[in-house]
């Protein structure tokens, strides 16, 4: 694998690449703004938001946080091993990264299924409109991230990989962005109302 020495201290070369960091900030600002709008709406209807929040399963949310953080941990280890040129190990850790990402999606699907069965759909009330909008948008990011990681996995698996280290770092940064967004969503949606 081609490894180029990058000076991360240069403002134009943050780890993962400047383009991805611009995307990360745009995503954080977008999710952040909607979450603040949700908190503002919660102040208009405090009882509805509190009662709705109690209908969510905090245990599911906590376990999903653990899944994403563990996945992010394995992603960081994957990048570390690749930098040491341990391709075999990196492939194994990347598979673990994707496995925990899939576990997140499985548990999220169970959560969605129970909510829909209980009639708590997007139109139920303002809280659930925000809940579905924010969490579904995040799930889409996780699915896109898994597609990117699958492509990276097959890219580094080749005998003569065409995937560069910068590509892996950019993919890792995207995957970690899913963690960051979830770390904002989880406390606001599941805990504070």
């Amino acid at each position: 694998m081609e490894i180029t020495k990058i000076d991360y201290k240069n403002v134009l070369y943050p780890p993962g690449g400047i383009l991805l960091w611009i995307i990360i900030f745009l995503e954080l600002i977008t999710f952040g703004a909607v979450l603040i709008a949700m908190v503002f709406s919660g102040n208009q209807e405090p009882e509805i938001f509190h009662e709705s929040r109690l209908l969510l399963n905090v245990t599911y949310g906590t376990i999903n946080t653990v899944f994403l953080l563990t996945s992010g941990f394995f992603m960081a280890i994957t990048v570390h091993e690749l930098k040491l040129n341990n391709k075999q190990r990196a492939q194994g850790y990347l598979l673990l990264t994707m496995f925990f990402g899939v576990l997140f999606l499985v548990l999220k699907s169970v959560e969605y299924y129970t909510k829909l069965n209980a009639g708590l759909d997007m139109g139920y009330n303002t809280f659930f409109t925000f809940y579905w909008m924010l969490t579904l948008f995040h799930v889409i990011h996780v699915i896109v991230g898994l597609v990117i990681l699958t492509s990276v996995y097959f890219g580094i698996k080749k005998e003569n990989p065409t995937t560069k280290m910068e590509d892996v770092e950019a993919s890792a940064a995207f995957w970690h962005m899913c963690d960051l967004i979830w770390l904002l969503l989880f406390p606001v949606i599941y805990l504070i109302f």
Partner: protein
Amino acid sequence: MNKQNVITWILLLLLTVIAGLVSSEYLSYGIPLILVLAVLKFIGVAFNFMELKKANVFWRILIIGFLVVFCGLILIIKI
């Protein structure tokens, strides 16, 4: 396996469990505490897993600035 990443991961899991426990109690300082725990986890992921600690100070200030504005606005609205 990178030792620093392992320590970060364990701390992140601990903070997640603490946040879950704090939310089940009705504490007067519950919301600020939950936000502080979320900020710590966010910083752990951004600075260690995403290696932002190696990046130019501009990016580090930007991410801290985002967190300050985000949490500040939530606290202003909520409290």
